[in-house]
């Protein structure tokens, strides 16, 4: 099946725009549902970020702490991240 190049380029454009839009969102991962007070504390701490478009997600694989993502930028404050850093350091010493 031949794909119409016009459709192909439109589709690519659409996907790129979608990714671009997604990049404006801030994703916050936490192991449990954060209550409003916790959310406010996080917002206060990172007041340089635009919190109008924020998504709070639950991911219990990070064990404890939170991870904040915006586009390709990531602030890792989770126990999982710390532990994997530690295992990496141990691996290097070995």
């Amino acid at each position: 099946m031949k794909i119409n190049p016009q459709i192909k380029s439109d589709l690519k454009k659409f996907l790129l725009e979608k990714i671009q839009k997604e990049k404006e969102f801030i994703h916050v991962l936490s192991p449990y549902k954060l209550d409003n007070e916790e959310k406010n504390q996080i917002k206060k701490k990172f007041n340089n970020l635009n919190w109008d478009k924020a998504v709070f997600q639950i991911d219990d694989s990070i064990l404890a702490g939170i991870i904040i993502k915006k586009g390709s930028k990531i602030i890792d404050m989770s126990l999982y991240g710390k532990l994997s850093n530690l295992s990496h350091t141990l691996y290097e010493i070995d």
Partner: protein
Amino acid sequence: MICLCTENYQIYRIRSMKLIDEYIKTLEKELQLKPKLIAEEIGIVTEVKDGIVLLEGLDAVAYGELLEFKKGVVGYVIDMTEEEVGAIILGDYTEIGTGDKAKALGYTLSVPVSEKLLGRVVNPLGNPLDGGPVINSKITYEVEKIAPGVVRRKQVNVPLQTGIKAIDSLIPIGRGQRELIIGDRGTGKTTIAIDTILNQKTENVICIYCAIGQKNSKVATTVELLKKYKAMDYSIIVSASATDSVAMQYLAPYSACAIGEYFMDKGKDVLVIYDDLTKHAWSYRQMSLILRRPAGREAYPGDVFYLHSRLLERACRLDEKYGGGSITALPIIETLEGDLSAYIPTNVISITDGQIFLETDLFNAGIRPAVNVGLSVSRVGGTAQTKAMKQVAGKLKLDLAQYRDLAAFSQFESELDEETKKFLNRGTKVTQVMKQKKNRPLSLAEQVAIMWAATNGYLDLIVVDQIEKFELRLLDILKLKGKKWLATVNQNKILNKEDEKELEKIIKTLV
């Protein structure tokens, strides 16, 4: 005795108490520090190819920045498009799979440099390959660096003695010059380079031999050879062999140059040999094709000229104000059937300050080193030649040029006049003198002595196949009786009238 022991014990106790106190203090300090919040740049691997990965994300990464994959594997960003980032992997890329995370490290690739590198065999990242200790150094040099500008440079006018008669007399190389060694396989390209290293023993030049895409066995042989002649004391070998990934082969010459720059900045003279740049171009071509860059002539990418020009431009001679060091580059290019007009040879010929052209026919005819004197040039030329050498080599060049013209011409003529016969005779003798056994570089004075004998007609009466013997005898006698003469010429680098007279005396005893 007992009293002494307890005293020692007391001192020991006090010392260890102090140590423990210090530990506790630093620990307290560390605990008081608040955890740093660092925003990391993260990318996700979408494709893995031979030595190259493509990643998504990494919006704010820079060209040439390092990436860290899991288990500490490091990548190097060399390609960025609208949607993806391409990186070459330095190390084991079989560990990386799609979906893996990569973290941008925020700095560019650099190699650790120190005096400890001398005598070592390292890979392009500065890790030892000779089983020796790891090279620890606080100083690191960036692998990709812009070459020094016009202000920092100085004219090339100090000779770099290769110890090879044909080169030092006819195609002189200066410190800070870029001289290409080009020829087919098996014509002695590497031999010329290695002989040059061997000759730097007394010249206070640091030699870096960069092996790109070579067989490991060949590199091992080279190391053995250099060790045998005790040349490893002032040499460094940077090796990315045929088994290493193309990424390593691509980085090897830049890394070798960065090590050279460290010594140059310390005011030393450095010789860097790139063996060879054809394989370097191949590795870059492979990388570029995997990255889907548009292919040009011979499937090389568009920036293959810049690939070599930015490397060789880093060879230079610094002004005294900036330390006065230098990097001399001897790139090697392998041709196919003597084809100089292929893409990479023409590129590198135009970048360098001259070339030494080696020919299979000459090699098979027994003229070794197989330098084609007609096609070889050095664009720095006489300014980078000692006075003593200039005195004898000036006549030599003329003799050889006349010989070449006449030899071609006289093939068709049966009867030749005396003058022509004389020129032809002189020419054959001088050609004989240019022959030299490998791994036997000669000092300046030794070279001058032999060439003086040739240009002044002392070899005219000797049969062609006896010339080698004569040369050996001359060198032996010079070492026995003319030690003083050798020393003065090597030191002053000038051939006085008195020196000439003394040399004449020695030669006359032989003839």
